[in-house]
């Protein structure tokens, strides 16, 4: 129970991310079908994004879009005259991990697109997407394969 309180309860998100990431990574290494490997890759990458997003969570915080408390007051002050503007950072979720993860999502879809294009190219050459069949065809050699 002590273990549960110390390790599992306050960190359940991190446990979940590790489990998802390992599911994805296992598929990337072990699966035979290339598309299945890519599905594993998607899961692997989103798990890392889940980890980053979990870092930035604050209990009871709002989304990181600042409220307009009193627009007319805000506009009458020049920015320099009103340095802090009474924004409490604890009221807003941490924006930095979100920014980083936008990049990671974009990288993820780019990699996926590239990998799918390569899969189609492999299918054109080998007429299959099963890794063991491709390797068997390479071993046999054949027209255009043993370059």
């Amino acid at each position, binding site marked *: 129970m002590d273990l549960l309180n*110390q*390790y599992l309860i*306050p*960190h*359940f*998100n*991190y*446990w979940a991310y*590790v*489990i998802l*990431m*390992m599911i994805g*990574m*296992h598929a990337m*290494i*072990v699966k035979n079908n290339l598309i299945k490997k890519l599905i594993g890759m998607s899961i692997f990458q989103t798990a890392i994004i889940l980890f980053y997003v*979990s*870092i*930035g*969570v*604050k*209990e009871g*915080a709002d*989304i*990181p*879009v*600042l*409220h*307009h408390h009193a627009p007319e007051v805000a506009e009458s002050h020049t*920015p*320099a005259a*009103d*340095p802090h*503007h009474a*924004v409490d*950072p*604890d009221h*807003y979720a*941490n*924006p*930095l*991990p*979100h*920014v*980083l993860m*936008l*990049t990671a999502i*974009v*990288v993820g*879809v*780019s*990699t996926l*697109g*590239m990998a*799918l*294009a*390569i899969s*189609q*190219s492999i299918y*054109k050459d080998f007429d299959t997407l099963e890794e063991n069949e491709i390797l068997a065809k390479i071993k046999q050699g054949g027209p255009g394969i043993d370059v």
Partner: protein
Amino acid sequence: MKWIGLIAVVLTGALLLSAVGDFPDFGDPKSPANGGVGDFSVSQYYITHTEQDTKVPNVVTAVLADYRGYDTMFETTVIFIAGIGIIAILRSHPPGGRRGPAHPIDATVDGDHQRIIIGITCRIMIPIIQIFALYVVAHGHHSPGGGFQGGVMLGASFILIGLSRDLQAALARFSERRFIVLACLGVAIYAGFGLLCLLLERNFLDYGVLDGFFHTDPVMARSHGIFAVEVGVAFTVTAIMFAIYANLSSKGRLDEGL
């Protein structure tokens, strides 16, 4: 291979879990990442200073396109590379050259009733999607969204044309030459605004110096600069999302699609 994979996965998992006990509690606003170590925290700085530095209420947009705009420029480049790479790998005719045989299948005269329903529904939906996408691009300063999300939606609207009618119909609106140029243009807008700052003798991507260009004060110039680069991002993402779909769905021949 199976066992090696399993062992590697178990080892990595154990390694990752070994640190979990040391993590700050989930949701703790005073954790090092949220509250910083010592008296300074980068993320708190962003929340407290974005308004006065850039006048953008959406902190994520401000950090994305200004404080860490250099990352985002390369993020756009990553998308661009994916599109160019996929064309390089799959395309079987010269880019910008001749296209496949033109026998456009018009959804309404096809005689296929399902196609009529889908075609007309999409015809109604696509303009709405596009307007919403433009709204998302333009309203990224004040609400979630921005160049990426809007660009993906705009690209998706062209993909929807390709899905509901056929690829030729989509390519007639957004030809290969156009999407390559638009993709280049998007990155060029982003990097070009950076270069403009450099030519005005400030650091790369320092939009504050563009106040004369935008006829406003330096802080508002940052806000406008953020909008300008978001538009660039949206261009590239729109073009590349459609380019990837067009090539994947036709095995690089850009003829019929799915």
